[in-house]
């Protein structure tokens, strides 16, 4: 088991290296530089050259890449040009926000999705099932950002139930108030994200439940005299839930991807918004760091899922 994980991690390393080079080159290939954007007539061209030199932006790319890698190993992802702050600190702040939102969304997603999927599967073909399926159909057909825009407008502005921007209210002080304020800011985006994100879970779970329902081992269980409701509990739910639980690793990465839309619409200062800004400001260090980080998270997500699956499913367990 541990060996497999370790081997997987070893395989990850070259992938990460290639990704980092790719990302680095892509970022470099973007037009403009971090300083032209904040063009200030008072700053002389010489000063900008000076700044470019300090930041090593005139070096050949491999040199820059090498420097970057060396720093990376010291836990230093460089300075954000725009924010004048170490990228690590920046990502820590924003990452915490995104993580909050992502976790909250995920919890909600599963809280909504699991019962719904099971319910639909259990009542396959009945009215309730049709209702759930209509919900999944419609949600699936609306682009995520339309959901967000309509959601923020109704609940944020028209009804004024939820805050519409930021991650915390400016007035909140003290631990309790801070927590409540933070929660208040992620409820709406989290809920919208969850409503959207449940679709896959519901559909997957529903068909898993239906498959399990018709499986031979359920027939065996019935022939043992196990009442149907216990069969659901001990056999069907368990067997259909486990693969889904194992896929949680993947769904985290999915959520992180979706965060770009959520954060943009809700002006929520997380990594997605940071990325969009970094793109506009040509904040290379931030761009490379973020893409690499997301790549790394993707990797971890798959790894986690694999591990979870092998724990959960004896068939893929490695002896």
């Amino acid at each position, binding site marked *: 088991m541990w060996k497999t994980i370790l081997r997987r991690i070893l395989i990850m390393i070259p992938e990460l290296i290639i990704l980092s080079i790719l990302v680095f080159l892509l970022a470099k290939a973007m037009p403009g530089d971090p300083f032209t954007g904040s063009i200030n007539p008072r700053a002389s061209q010489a000063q900008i050259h000076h700044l470019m030199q300090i930041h090593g932006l005139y070096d050949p790319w491999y040199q820059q890449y090498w420097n970057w890698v060396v720093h990376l190993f010291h836990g230093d992802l460089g300075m954000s040009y725009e924010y004048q702050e170490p990228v690590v600190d920046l990502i820590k702040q924003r990452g915490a926000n995104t993580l909050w939102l992502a976790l909250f969304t995920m919890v909600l997603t599963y809280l909504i999705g699991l019962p719904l999927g099971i319910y639909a599967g259990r009542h396959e073909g009945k009215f309730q099932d049709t209702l759930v399926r209509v919900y999944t159909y419609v949600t699936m057909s609306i682009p995520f950002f339309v959901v967000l825009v309509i959601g923020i407008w109704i609940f944020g502005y028209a009804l004024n139930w939820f805050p519409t921007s930021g991650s915390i209210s400016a007035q909140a002080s003290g631990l309790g108030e801070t927590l409540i304020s933070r929660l208040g800011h992620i409820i709406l985006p989290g809920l919208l994200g969850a409503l959207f994100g449940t679709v896959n879970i519901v559909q997957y779970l529903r068909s898993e439940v239906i498959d399990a329902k018709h*499986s*031979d*081992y359920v*027939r*065996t*269980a*019935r*022939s*043992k*005299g*196990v*009442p*149907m409701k*216990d069969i659901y509990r*001990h*056999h069907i739910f*368990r*067997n259909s839930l*486990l693969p889904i639980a194992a896929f949680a690793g993947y769904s985290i990465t999915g959520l992180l991807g979706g965060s770009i839309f959520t954060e943009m619409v809700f002006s929520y200062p997380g990594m997605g918004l940071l990325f969009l800004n970094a793109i506009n400001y040509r904040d290379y260090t931030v761009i490379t760091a973020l893409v690499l980080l997301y790549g790394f998270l993707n990797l971890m997500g798959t790894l986690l899922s694999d591990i979870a699956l092998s724990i*959960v*499913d*004896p*068939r893929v367990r490695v002896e």
Partner: protein
Amino acid sequence: MVETKSDQFLRIKDVSTAFKINGQYYDAVSDVSLEVNHDEILAIVGESGCGKSTLATTIMGLHDPEETKISGEIDFEGTDLLKLDEKGYNQIRGAKIGMIFQDPLSALNPLKRIEDQIQEVMVYHTKMDEKQRHARVIELLNEVGIVDPERTAHQFPHQLSGGMRQRIIIAIAIACKPDLIIADEPTTALDVTIQAQILDVLRDIQKENHAGIILITHDLGVVAETADRVAVMYAGQIVETGSAAQIFNEPKHPYTRSLLRSMPQRDNENDDLYVISGMVPSLQKMPKDGDRFAPRIPWIPVSAHEAHPTMHELEPGHMVRCTCYQNFYFPDQVKEGAGNESN
């Protein structure tokens, strides 16, 4: 061989099972009557699609009531199973009737340990505590011939070979010492050597528990080796029943005779085998009336068949459907080389 009434603990009377296909019901099992006695193995044989499994699952009450229509009477130790509700059935399934399925891999929950799967049946039908149940599991595994029961109990289905899995299924079926065991093709997926072992196990269990066994198979060899009584099924109907000796030594119904004749045996080593022309009709194409086997013996004139075939008792315990057996002959016995091909 006349049995007293009390020995017949399972009496199936005029049971029909119909499946709903495109809104209409079609009989897969029609008017089947059978008895099973204590201490006996009743084999049901027939080609694929004859309704053997359907009959078995009907007895077990495993059909979805919305998709099937079942009529008749299944008297099991004094209760009519078909009148039971789900709750009542659950007290019988596993406790009084055990079932063994054909595909031993898919019949086990892949995510549960062997031990848990065997224990489950005890949880619902006995008052044993965890410890007792474990002891019983080990006992059962020994009984079905598993060499290292403690280890096996702890394993998952995929870690076992096909023969071992089938033994587990048997262990589950006999865990509560049921009076009746229904084994639906328990050895079809297995090698001959393992098949022999499994059949041995079944027989031993039956002896020990005085259970009755319904053994479903299409392998006549298996029947000949194990069955006390045989019921031959064709197209949802029983066409012949009798003791093993009656069926194998004096087969009467054309279908039984055809089946036996199509087996490769020592005495027909160098000849062509006999081939039954045509095939089992699908449910929708099942003839409503008359002898269902008639289309497959076209050289026998229609007049030889009964219009509404019924069972005829030839000897005590030996029953045959339709009187056509009296006029039956194999085509090559009259005309050389005719009709041994078909499609």
